[in-house]
């Protein structure tokens, strides 16, 4: 059984790969390469897997919220990903890379009995990125 909780955060970013030329970056990333960046209202779904305990819950909602707020939202919400998040100083803040970073942020401090099973991030309502977490 899995339980999924949805969170939101707003952040800005600019997609620019240092290994590519200015021209190549413009062609590859289009508007996402505009020099001053732009923002999104990201929606993050965190899925945990397990068996309900004596409370009838796979995961205590307050503990899950505290984990996600403490490890992820406090570091990403209302931030400029390129400038304010250390890991993105050398890594392009695509949503793919963002999903992997959130996985790392959560797994480093994960102390819930339920297993972190999946992350799903929507950058806009028209796209979504899913990451299954290895057992």
């Amino acid at each position, binding site marked *: *059984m*899995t*339980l*999924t*909780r*949805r969170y939101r955060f707003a952040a800005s970013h600019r997609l620019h790969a240092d290994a590519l030329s200015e021209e190549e970056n413009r062609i590859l990333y289009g508007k996402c390469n505009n020099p001053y960046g732009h923002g999104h209202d990201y929606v993050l779904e965190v899925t945990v897997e397990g068996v309900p305990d*004596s*409370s*009838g819950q*796979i995961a205590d909602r307050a503990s899950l919220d505290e984990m996600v707020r403490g490890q992820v939202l406090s570091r990403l919400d209302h931030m400029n990903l390129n400038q304010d998040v250390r890991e993105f100083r050398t890594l392009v803040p695509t949503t793919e890379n963002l999903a992997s970073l959130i996985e790392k942020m959560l797994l480093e401090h994960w102390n819930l009995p339920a297993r972190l099973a999946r992350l799903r991030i929507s950058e806009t309502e028209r796209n979504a990125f899913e990451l299954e977490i290895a057992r």
Partner: protein
Amino acid sequence: MRITRKAEFSASHVCANAAWSAEENRKVYGLSANPNGHGHNYVLEVTVEGDPDPVTGMVFDLRELKEILNQEVVEPMDHRFLNREVPPFDHVVPTAENIAAEIWRRLEERIRREHHGVHLANVRLYETADLYVDVGAES
């Protein structure tokens, strides 16, 4: 091939374990332990899996699926106080997990009994837009 049908029901519940003190329940369930209950608009997505019938081109007649959902879930649970009116929630805490598991049991048995070559693949229950539970065969 999998097909999914959606249904909705509104119900009230209290999350509290009768074996625990009011204080313990408050600590575990927070506001959901308020003794007189509160409500949600539950959204249910039921997914069945099978091969389309070569004659009808359908995996499952959606009108029949709708009728099963109505009989097993919507009629018994809609506009009810789950703890007081819908067994087993008189003694099982109606968390989203336990409600989803109960819906799985009701539907899985009936579909297995009445519909050959098709099986229940997933039950997803939204308690709010921001919290949902999935139950599949492996759970």
